[in-house]
């Protein structure tokens, strides 16, 4: 049983804020295959295309038949714990600051023996366990030995909380509370145990439905935030930047134009101003604040979530300028991820298909319900993944894009969604 995490005490402002020392992040190029899968929540190992042998650690040549044809395949992760140890000493600062630390050696049913970070609920060896891959604070994949049947509070395990960005007891900024999506995100965060949810609203004189319901929640505080206005972003960062643990940037402008369907650049500029420059303004103000608090106790700053679009991968001509702004935002989010990584802050990018809102009114179903999107965000935070493609449309686009981006481009040019 994991002891349920208690609400952390208020921070003593006199004490120095602990700074981040990342766990070892060096990996060989082949080993990054595990990270690639873990970034999307899957546990994959190399499997020999010729003899079927599963390989670990990752390598270039099959250890059974010498074939170079090693393909990444999803693993169930079932295995037998052969031994465990509790580290009381480490030469690495990250672990030294977090001792004692539990490790295990697991013989996977699939063949290899793997070293894992061991969840506290796993019993003494020999014990059946389930191995999964997670990203650690360095953003690299590590394997974790989970109990076969975890308890209700297993997410509160000290080790696991280091690997994830669970909103429980954390303070979150949601940049736009006026949309259905924003309100769904706020409700999901409150349900997930977030301590404080600051909800941004631009142009407060415009009354929008639902905002009153959200602001009635005791965890919620409305804050003025206009991402088109650098001063507004700076002022908010000055007020709450030192307290925010998770930033969820869901503010977006979405119009349904290509190039020829509207003259001029006014709409395209408005889209870019929020979707791209808004992210840039926000990241410049809140990025350094998050980085400074990434090792600040049990409710450290931990994650940054960007609401992108599956159209960021390949332009959807009927929403052509919106697609372009999301592609720009995606590129900038990669830059943000690289800059946040040295502090151990995870940047999570969402690539949804059409959301069931007013700007996708003319899109045929299936469309993503705002509540589904919101729970996908909470799940991503809890699972510690980096990239999520919520909904059937996004998954199908992704599959087609991975199969052949050029074919997808052609299909989209012919209006095929």
């Amino acid at each position: 049983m994991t002891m349920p995490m208690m609400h952390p005490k208020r921070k003593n402002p006199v004490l120095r804020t602990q700074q981040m020392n990342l766990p070892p992040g060096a990996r060989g190029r082949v080993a990054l295959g595990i990270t690639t899968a873990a970034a999307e929540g899957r546990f994959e190992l190399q499997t020999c295309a010729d003899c079927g042998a599963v390989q670990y650690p990752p390598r270039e040549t099959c250890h059974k038949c010498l074939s170079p044809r090693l393909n990444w395949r999803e693993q169930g992760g079932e295995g037998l714990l052969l031994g465990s140890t509790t580290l009381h000493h480490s030469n690495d600062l990250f672990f030294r600051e977090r001792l004692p630390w539990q490790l295990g050696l697991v013989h996977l049913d699939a063949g290899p023996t793997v070293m894992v970070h061991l969840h506290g609920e796993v019993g003494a060896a020999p014990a059946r366990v389930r191995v999964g891959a997670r990203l650690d604070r360095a953003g690299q994949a590590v394997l974790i030995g989970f109990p076969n049947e975890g308890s209700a509070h297993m997410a509160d395990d000290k080790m696991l909380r280091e690997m994830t960005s669970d909103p429980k007891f954390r303070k979150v900024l949601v940049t736009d509370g006026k949309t259905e999506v924003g309100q769904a995100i706020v409700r999901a965060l409150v349900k997930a145990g977030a301590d404080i949810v600051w909800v941004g609203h631009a142009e407060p004189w415009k009354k929008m439905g639902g905002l009153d319901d959200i602001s009635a929640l005791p965890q919620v505080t409305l804050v003025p935030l206009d991402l088109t206005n650098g001063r507004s972003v700076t002022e908010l960062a000055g007020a709450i930047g030192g307290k925010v643990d998770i930033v969820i940037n869901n503010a977006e402008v979405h119009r349904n134009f290509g190039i020829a369907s509207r003259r001029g650049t006014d709409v395209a500029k408005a889209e870019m101003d929020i979707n791209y420059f808004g992210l840039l303004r926000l990241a410049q103000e809140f990025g350094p604040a998050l980085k400074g608090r990434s090792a600040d106790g049990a409710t450290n700053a931990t994650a940054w979530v960007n609401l992108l679009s599956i159209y960021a991968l390949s332009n959807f001509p009927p929403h052509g300028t919106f697609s372009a702004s999301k592609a720009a935002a995606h590129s900038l989010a990669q830059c943000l991820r690289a800059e946040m990584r040295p502090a151990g802050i995870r940047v999570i990018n969402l690539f949804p298909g059409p959301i069931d809102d007013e700007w996708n009114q003319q899109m045929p179903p299936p469309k993503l319900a705002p509540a589904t999107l919101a729970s996908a965000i909470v799940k991503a935070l809890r699972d510690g993944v980096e990239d999520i493609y919520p909904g059937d449309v996004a998954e199908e686009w992704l599959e087609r894009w991975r199969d052949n981006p050029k074919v997808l481009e052609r299909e989209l040019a012919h209006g095929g969604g």
Partner: protein
Amino acid sequence: MARQRLSYAGVAVAVPVTVPYVRYSTHSAHWFIGHAIDALVKASGVGKDQIDGLCLSSFSLAPDTAVGVTQHMGLSPRWLDHVPTGGASGVMCLRRAARAVQSGDADVVACVAADTNHIDSFRQTLGSFSNFARDATYPYGSGGPNSIFAFITANYMRSFGAKREDFGRIAVDQRSNALKNPNAMFKKPLTLDEYMAARPISDPIHLFDCVMPCAGAEAFLVMSQERARELGLPHAVIRGAIERHNAYSEDPVMVRGGWRVDRDDLYAQAGVRSADIDFVQTYDDYPVIAMMQFEDLGFCEKGEGPAFVRSHSLTCDGSFPSNTSGGQLSAGQAGAAGGFLGMTETLRQLTDTAGSRAVAHAHLGLVAGFGMVTYDRCLCTGAVILGRPA
């Protein structure tokens, strides 16, 4: 049926040299190699220019290898080898040097293992030890070999009923051997109570299950017996030698080492049985590995290691003299020199220069090596039986 291998007859192993260990050094590995070669020259009377073979083992020499060392030391050998097998490099350097001498590729081979140890070098070595370590063990707590051998020890204890006290006997007896070794880093006696009360490092591994990284060097010369006699050098002869890499890779966790694969070959080469061996120098990176060597080299059956150490004393004057220098557990681990420690100590035992550590009537000594935890176990195993010349 494997082809009958050439015997090692006619090869002399001589001039054991130890460059005293220090916990930390500001010198590079070259400094220790230089001291070792200088000591070899002075103790043997063989001129530096007469050393025409060099076999080197070192972790901290990078970016140099044995190649750079020749220029650094002003050597011009006609045979050169760099053996990267760490704890197994003593056995492996000896095997290679012996064949070079037998074939006439070299007349006098200096085998040298040396490493320095800076304040932060152990941590840095751990992180860059191997591709597999970088990818699959170092990110997990960075405990280095301690956590790997914790798994192996825990699994062994569970499988064969070994107790911490059993490993403690090995550590305690070796410490009493070390007290007679002026080169040993540890100078104070160790009791079983102290062993049991030590702080946990990566349980069941506690403090006195671990070696202390330090700086130092071990070295010896290999030449023909004829040459050794001309020079008037006391020496030992090679009765048999084996090596094996990546044995039993299908075992999900290490319970036996490559010695088990080749031990019949080893004793057959020497024409002796395990019972004929007078003393044993195991590779003692952790006590459980010493215990496995007792089993895998045929002194007892698999799983009988705990009972074996309960019924024997491992001191120099005990019923089963083992690691008579104190071993790495009590003498210290000077990097790759740890793989040479058993060799130089055995040469001292067989050439009557072991002082108060002398094992009575010592005629046959066995030296085992074990090296390179690239992932979840050491891959390199080897063993040699050395004897007094006929």
